[in-house]
């Protein structure tokens, strides 16, 4: 696989031909020539082209705490599924682990919560699906928002986040998010996170989509990896207080006879064994839902991003917020096919990279909030100004060579080593040629509703990170989710440790799972689907039909 196919050459030439002119505009300030959209223009492009506005995008959920609400159709399907377990076959006897705080999900939110729960005196168990840190948190590239410059402030950050979220965000959560950002920046720095600095030693800050100031802190384009590997290392520095259970996803919460959350049932995916963890408080930190491939989109998310936490919490009675809204990242790779849907960080545009159509023309302000930017890309392609790929996809160009012209030679190698490496593997040098991009499924905007301390309406059940809802309204801005998992991971950890001290667990039960089955029956929902999904299905269908069902807990419904 080497480089772009021949037939794309003509379009690539046009991109190169318009580059000098575009460079000139960029130097004078692109926003003076290509104005950001007004509120009306935004609404127009969103309503016509954003996948959330498609007439089949949403449907009514028939059971559970949000019964009657319109949610994303795929989310409804997953929630209206049978449990993986039959409660009558499970004995809730002596627990395999007994702890103060159980954290489900070992990504950024889970690790941050573990560190802070421990600092507040709790014994912690982290149960995670794959390895600790095999998570969306490891993958973020662009950066984290924090108002750390004199001409910026937490309140300006607040305004940007509210506007980005279409003013649906829960204000008290956004206040916490933006006010604690500087403190989090410092906390991570003291753990050893290497935030990029300017040549004179200041924290380097870059603009991001929907920000009105330079506010993105980064660590090259391995920001997520840098933070995640530090948090993971720190978690592993406390084996006496934090027990890490890998390859053991939770399949159901366990409650006690007073309705408090009291731990979870884990499932060993290879041996089929169930593991019972009893905990005084439980934190769900299972991340997002990219692997549901909503509306058929490819995704940027890691393999385990299957919305499990939402399923578990919903069955236990937790309320969801904004599960009707999905974030599509404007710049997913459209070519080569091996990296279809992979993320091209927004920081490329932060450094001056420009989206252009097949004729090399600019058509949208590069740093609109994500939903607006993505919709504008979809419109450009729908109107015939995109480039088709050999395998039937379509995209527009993201001009990266202009970055070197704007910021000096060597910038890409220094600031975007991951992107450079990713494309080089397939014979494309992004210093010389642009990238072909199209929106990709990226982020779960909504989730389980929380308060400022990560608490839900289910006693002793807390939630942090991407799986929560309310912080970002219906559209998260870049850089606010790394911040989110740190701010609310920390808070959930602190509160869970406090609550654990006052908690006495009663008799364990799975009655809520029985009730859920009953609700399904009463609502007349007939389905073979089971959830949580745990791992998405990518096997070859022909071969799957030959599999023996009794050996395969993952066979898709209907096979």
């Amino acid at each position, binding site marked *: *696989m080497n480089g772009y196919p021949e037939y794309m050459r003509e379009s690539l030439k046009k991109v190169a031909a318009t580059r000098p002119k575009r460079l000139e505009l960029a130097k004078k300030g692109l926003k003076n020539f290509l104005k950001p959209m007004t*509120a009306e223009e935004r609404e127009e492009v969103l309503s016509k082209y954003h996948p959330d506005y498609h007439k089949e995008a949403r449907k009514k959920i028939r059971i559970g705490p949000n019964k009657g609400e319109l949610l994303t159709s795929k989310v409804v399907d997953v929630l209206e599924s049978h449990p993986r377990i039959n409660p009558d076959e499970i004995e809730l006897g002596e627990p395999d682990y007994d702890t103060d705080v159980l954290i489900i999900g070992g990504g950024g939110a889970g690790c941050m919560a573990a560190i802070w729960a421990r600092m507040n005196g709790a014994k912690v168990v982290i149960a995670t699906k*794959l*390895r600790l*840190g095999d998570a969306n948190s*490891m993958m973020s590239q662009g950066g984290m928002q924090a108002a*750390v*410059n004199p*001409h910026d*402030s937490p*309140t300006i950050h*607040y*305004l940007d986040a*509210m*506007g980005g979220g279409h*003013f649906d965000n829960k*204000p008290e959560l956004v*206040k916490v998010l933006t*006010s604690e950002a*500087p*403190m989090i*920046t*410092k906390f991570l*720095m003291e*753990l*050893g996170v*290497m935030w990029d*600095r300017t040549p004179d030693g*200041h924290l380097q*800050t870059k603009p991001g989509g929907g920000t*009105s*100031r*330079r506010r993105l802190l980064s*660590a090259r384009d*391995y920001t997520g990896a*840098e933070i995640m590997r*530090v948090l993971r*290392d*720190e978690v592993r*520095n406390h084996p006496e207080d934090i027990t890490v259970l890998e*390859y053991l996803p939770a399949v159901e919460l366990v409650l006690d006879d007073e309705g408090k959350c009291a731990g979870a049932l884990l499932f060993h995916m*290879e041996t089929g064994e169930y593991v019972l963890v009893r905990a005084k408080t439980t934190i769900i930190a299972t991340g997002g839902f990219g692997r549901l*491939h909503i509306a058929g989109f*490819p995704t*940027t998310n890691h*393999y385990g991003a299957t919305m499990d936490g939402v399923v578990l919490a919903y069955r236990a009675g937790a309320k969801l917020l904004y599960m009707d809204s999905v974030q599509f990242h404007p710049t997913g790779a459209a070519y080569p096919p*091996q990296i*279809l*849907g992979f993320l091209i960080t927004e920081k490329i545009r932060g450094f001056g990279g420009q989206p252009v159509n097949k004729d090399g023309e600019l058509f949208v302000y590069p740093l609109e909030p994500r939903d607006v930017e993505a919709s504008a890309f979809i419109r450009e392609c729908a109107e015939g100004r995109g480039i088709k790929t050999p*395998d039937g996809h379509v995209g527009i160009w993201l001009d990266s060579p202009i970055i070197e012209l704007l910021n000096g030679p060597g910038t890409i190698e220094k600031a975007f*080593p*991951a992107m450079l*490496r*990713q494309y080089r593997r397939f014979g494309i040098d992004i210093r010389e040629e642009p990238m072909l991009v199209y929106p990709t499924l990226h982020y779960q905007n909504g989730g389980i509703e929380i308060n400022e301390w990560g608490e839900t309406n289910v006693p002793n059940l807390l939630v942090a990170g991407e799986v929560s809802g309310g912080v970002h309204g219906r559209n998260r801005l870049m850089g606010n989710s790394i911040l989110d998992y740190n701010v609310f991971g920390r808070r959930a950890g602190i509160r869970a440790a406090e609550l654990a001290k006052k908690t006495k667990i009663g008799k364990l039960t799975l009655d809520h799972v029985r009730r859920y089955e009953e609700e399904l029956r009463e609502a007349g929902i007939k389905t073979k689907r089971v959830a949580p999904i745990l*791992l998405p299905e*990518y*096997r*070859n269908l022909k*071969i799957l039909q030959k599999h023996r069902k009794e050996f395969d807990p*993952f066979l898709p419904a209907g096979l």
Partner: protein
Amino acid sequence: MDTQIEEKLIPIYILSKKYYVPEGSTIITAMEYAGFKLKKGVGCREGFCGACASLYRLPGDYKLHGGLACQTVVQPEMQIVQIPFAPAEKKVYNIDELTPDIEPFKKYYPEVFRCVSCNTCTKICPQELEVMDYIQAVIRGDLELAVDLSFDCIMCGLCSVRCPAEMPQHLIAILARRLYGKYMMPRAEFLEKRIKEVEEGKFEEEFARFMSMSRDELKKLYYERDINFDIT
């Protein structure tokens, strides 16, 4: 779902059994095509998490190659095995009590000094990092270079599996980076000031004002706000 490739099938060996898989597949998608449900040896699928390190050999080539299964395209007659994780002992330390020099390495990873400069680690690194050079930098106490060269490490651990001196390079590297990030990078002076401002309630009044606004008032304020990337 990750890939949609025209189906020309080529033979590969997964754990010594022959399978025909679509040309252009990555090792991950090839294994799935062959019917495997991957429950380990797979993570982000985008080259960032280091969960899918794999070893392979090609016909007529004596070399043992390493790669990430999600990033490596299969070739005819390739023999593949996955290394879901590299056994290695991460040492427990209190980062607040260490000094940013050679001492912590002497104490926690003394095997680093056993490096024989064979460069096997560099050759196997799927990120194409100069692993041996960063290990040598650690030995010289040049943390800055060690950190710079190891920064893009995704901690798959292939280096540690191949090392004749049997050291965990990836764990040594993260200790180096944490020390450097904590003790040797410039202090962010304004940050302290900002944290203080927040603690002293400097923004409370404005927060209260914003939070008491109606949706329309806030919307107006938002669309009229000054967007300025020239100042910091």
